[in-house]
């Protein structure tokens, strides 16, 4: 029985701010999971990670994380750890990504470090 492949994204922490970032389809970095590049098979996942690993001047500790896709094909985390990483401390909703209005799409250049 072949193992079913789960879609994957590459996540890391920003070198400067330390916050959570995701690799985007242009092999740059975004702070929004919705903008992450999605690997639909093993080969694409390995390729994404290979593109991330040398970018040490921007990020720390890139790794592959499982995601599921909603009806519009946008990724969302399947593991609770990754869910918390998209938000911030659950006891302080005024801090971290969750504190920023999700509708406000900041230009990446202005969001620091990337």
């Amino acid at each position, binding site marked *: 029985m072949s193992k079913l492949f789960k879609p994957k994204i590459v996540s890391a922490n920003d*070198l400067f701010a*330390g916050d959570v970032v995701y690799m985007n389809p242009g092999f740059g970095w975004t702070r929004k999971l919705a903008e992450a590049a999605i690997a639909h098979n093993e080969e694409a996942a390995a390729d994404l990670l290979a593109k991330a690993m040398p970018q040490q001047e921007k990020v720390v500790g890139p790794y592959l994380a499982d995601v599921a896709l909603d009806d519009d094909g946008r990724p969302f985390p399947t593991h*609770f750890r990754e869910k918390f*990483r998209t938000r911030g401390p659950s006891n*302080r909703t005024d801090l971290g990504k969750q504190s920023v209005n999700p509708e406000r799409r900041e230009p990446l250049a202005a969001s620091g470090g990337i």
Partner: protein
Amino acid sequence: MYRYDEFDAAYVKDRVNTFRGQVNRRIDGSLTEDEFKPLRLMNGLYLQLHAYMLRVAIPYGTLSSRQMRALAMIASKWDKGYGHLTTRQNIQYNWPALKDVPDILDALADVEMHAIQTSGNCIRNVTADHFAGAAADEIEDPRPTAEIIRQWSTEHPEFLYLPRKFKIAVTGSPNDRAVTKAHDIGLRMVRNDTGEAGYEVIVGGGLGRSPFVGKVVRDFLPKSDLLPYLEAILRVYNLHGRRDNKYKARIKILVHETGIEDLRAMVEREFEQLDGPSVALAEEEVARIEAYFAPPVFAKLPQHSSALEQAKKADAEFAAWVETNTDAHKQSGYTIVTVSAKAIGEAPGDLTTAQMDVLADIAEQYGHDELRISHEQNVILPHVRLDDLRIVHAALADAGLATANANLISDIIACPGLDYCALATARSIPVAQDIQQRFADPVRAKAIGEFKIKISGCINACGHHHVGHVGILGLEKAGIENYQITLGGDHTETTAIGDRAGPGFAFEQVGPAIERLVDAYISLRANDNERFLDTYRRLGLEPFKTALYDNERTAA
């Protein structure tokens, strides 16, 4: 309080400058993360789930008002307006930017503080009884000992790359408030037959994945032999401690695998062979350090304060706080105040900038300028006049710091857990908050009595769950958070590792389970003064297991 001499000050500033250069080289790409990581860890800088985290040492938990204000300023200027007190008398900042960390360390150095050796496989921040120098039950102030160890262990060339991290705690009182039996080395001040003060030396305690209660390696160590004997233990550990397996590398495993008798023989042999006089501190140097910890000049006051008694009569809430949050002071007319950093619904151990400033003001005006951080994540005002308690309480209340819950069920130790920590497997803080809310009624909490809940968000046990009367350990099970409960742990001189009650609970089931446990305890206790721990020791696990599990099935 200890004050840096010229050497200390120059050394700490030098370290900041070195680290500043390392940060700059990381930012300009000259250093890879693999190269930089050990350097930042040596300076207390971790990378956590959502941001960097800087762990600042508060040696033996002692702070002046000036230092507390500096901690507040750092939280306000470079972080997000708060800091987190840890179970090892450190304070952690959860949101610093990498480029700002050298400036933070500079600001710390200005007030004689640093983050050196708050990470890495070295001797970590030396902790001590938070009532040191004030407690009525104390043989001697343990802080000179802790300071001597701090100086000896800071950048000790032989012990910077140990098999694993190494934690030392010191208590000067027979009532152990420093958890000495759960440390790599614990020192308990004792007197020998001739009345001379020395140390009982305990080795190989620890929590984490494999919890062990420390064992006595030396019944009585003369104070003058302190450093040579510690050096002997560390040498034996450095040579024989396992380096093949991270999970078996702590000295507790060496003690367990070697046996305390053989280990003692190895230590004593090393102690005999090493050049003791070259390691021991000269008497005059010991005296110099001890002088820094001379007690403040206390006023001559009667044991009884009529101002206090009148205030208690007039204000029941104040009276309740005095009863729970003050302890016996060695000086007549004074008391020790425990300031709860466990307001109902707040993260245990979090202090805002404003709260830190208020604590500094109170300590300055009413507390001989001294503050302590306890391993239980509270703040101590060690020297307060009974006559001033009313005004101190009012000032604390205005700052949300007057929760009357010291040692009660809502005085919970909780590690940062998965809300912050990259190692965590589950959240701790919201579990603590839920339990606090359930037992928010002070009358009920008081009726329950001393009840120590300790929560860790992973097996590493920063939340000391093994030694909680009730321990809660957050793990991951089948993709969700799952919490194991242990019962009967004890963090005092009668240290005990709690017994695992049974299968774990889902996140939202923990609070109800604790409620059932408490109800069972109330119905089973011999009298109102029998603590949960005593009832547990008398009756064993079974009735509490029934309360935790059988009732759950009935309710479902």
